[in-house]
């Protein structure tokens, strides 16, 4: 049986503030910090936060996400970013060359159903979201399959400095892209093994000794 990290529930007292920064998933009342979520608390000298164990993706500026083009408009594309909020990809943020919009059908660049790895370039207070391909890592993803996991578990799937994801990539000979919105794109040899490993991490993300179990699953 694996060892489990502490789980807090909404309204549970975490700690006194003691001059620390408030992270995500917590609120303050008086001098005491309470949790907003069912999640795993992270307490250190500088910051207190709670990482929720479930929930949908809410867009944050600068996040790198995987989106699916779901509509072609006059001056850009509507992109589904696995969130309650739809994102817009304007043509200026997507194409480098000059496009004569009166004459060109812009679906030649991106069409409905295309998968894009992009960056959230603008998120307003009212959650109007704009995405951009102006990023070194942004690209269109061809072929492959996508799976969806709980967005808050993506850091655990990537691991410390990418250790977990590169382990899966090497062992299954797959190309894997992870979006911070919980969408993962996989293409390569042993896709089934890669998916199994990722879903195991998602299910057991709050347990100790996860790396060893994934290693044995992948047959290291």
């Amino acid at each position, binding site marked *: 049986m*694996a060892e*489990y990290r502490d*789980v807090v*529930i*909404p*309204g*549970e*007292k975490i700690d006194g503030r003691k001059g620390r920064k408030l992270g995500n*998933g917590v*609120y303050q009342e008086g001098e005491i910090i*309470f949790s*907003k*979520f*069912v999640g795993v608390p992270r307490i250190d000298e500088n910051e207190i936060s709670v990482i*929720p*164990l*479930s*929930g*949908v993706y*809410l867009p944050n500026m600068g996040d790198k996400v995987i989106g699916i083009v779901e509509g072609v408009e006059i001056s850009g594309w509507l992109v589904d970013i696995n969130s*309650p*909020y*739809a994102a817009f990809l304007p043509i200026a943020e997507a194409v480098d060359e000059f496009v004569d919009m009166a004459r060109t059908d812009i679906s030649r660049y991106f069409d409905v159903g295309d998968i894009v790895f992009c960056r959230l370039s603008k998120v307003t*207070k*009212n*959650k109007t979201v704009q995405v951009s391909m102006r990023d070194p890592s942004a690209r269109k993803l061809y072929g492959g399959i996508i799976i969806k996991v709980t967005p*808050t578990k993506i850091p655990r799937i990537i691991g410390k400095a990418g250790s977990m994801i590169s382990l899966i990539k090497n062992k299954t000979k797959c190309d894997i892209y992870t979006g911070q919105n919980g969408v993962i794109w996989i293409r390569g040899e042993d896709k089934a093994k890669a998916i199994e490993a990722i879903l195991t991490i998602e299910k*057991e993300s*709050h*347990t100790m000794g996860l790396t060893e179990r994934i290693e044995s699953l992948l047959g290291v």
Partner: protein
Amino acid sequence: MKEEKLMVDGKRIDGRLPEQLRDIKMKLNVVTRANGSAEVKFGKTTAIASVHGPRALFPRYLQESGTGILRIRYNMAPFSVNDRKSPGPDRRSTEISKVIRLALGPTIFLEDFPKITIDGFAEIIEADGSTRVTAINALSLALAAAGIPMEDLVASCSVGKIDGTLVVDLNGKEDNNSEADMAFAMLPNKGVISLLQMDGALTKKEVLKLLQSAKESCMKIYEMQIKVLKDFYKGE
């Protein structure tokens, strides 16, 4: 005109003491397609609650630019009661949906979700008194399981007066023949009351006494909610 006494030798018709809750069972994530769900049983009364969202809200005129909204639907299944209930919303379920929404609304950080909605559905599949408080308990668990940011859980129970005795957690028969009954919900950590409805006649002294025992019962229910949430995420 009553056929039988509801209190005999200090015990109620189902053998409980006045301050005793029924057998309570809670289960998390029973609805696979929902973001979060829960099943709560108070004796025979069974409520299944599911929370969908936060999700996009249409038609657009319903959207609020600064905040999200909470929508609750309380519904009793036609087979949940002895005489078939005609399906669909009616005056009673519309009202209960509203009071549940008002009981849960203050705990949720709705301002984190501008323009979108959180939808909660509470289905009563077996009704034996105190259905609205069972639905509140189930929805509160379902909201927490769906990862909705909340100030606190909501615990809820009913209290009332039968045959001149003040009791906790009324069942169907007691509910129908009670002198007074009161639905009660609170945020246990904050000690704030978020739902209080009363039907019947009580003196001020009785109301104060019932509030006290309702608070104590809610704390017991809250302990169970904590346990079910923590056990679920510790892996069965």
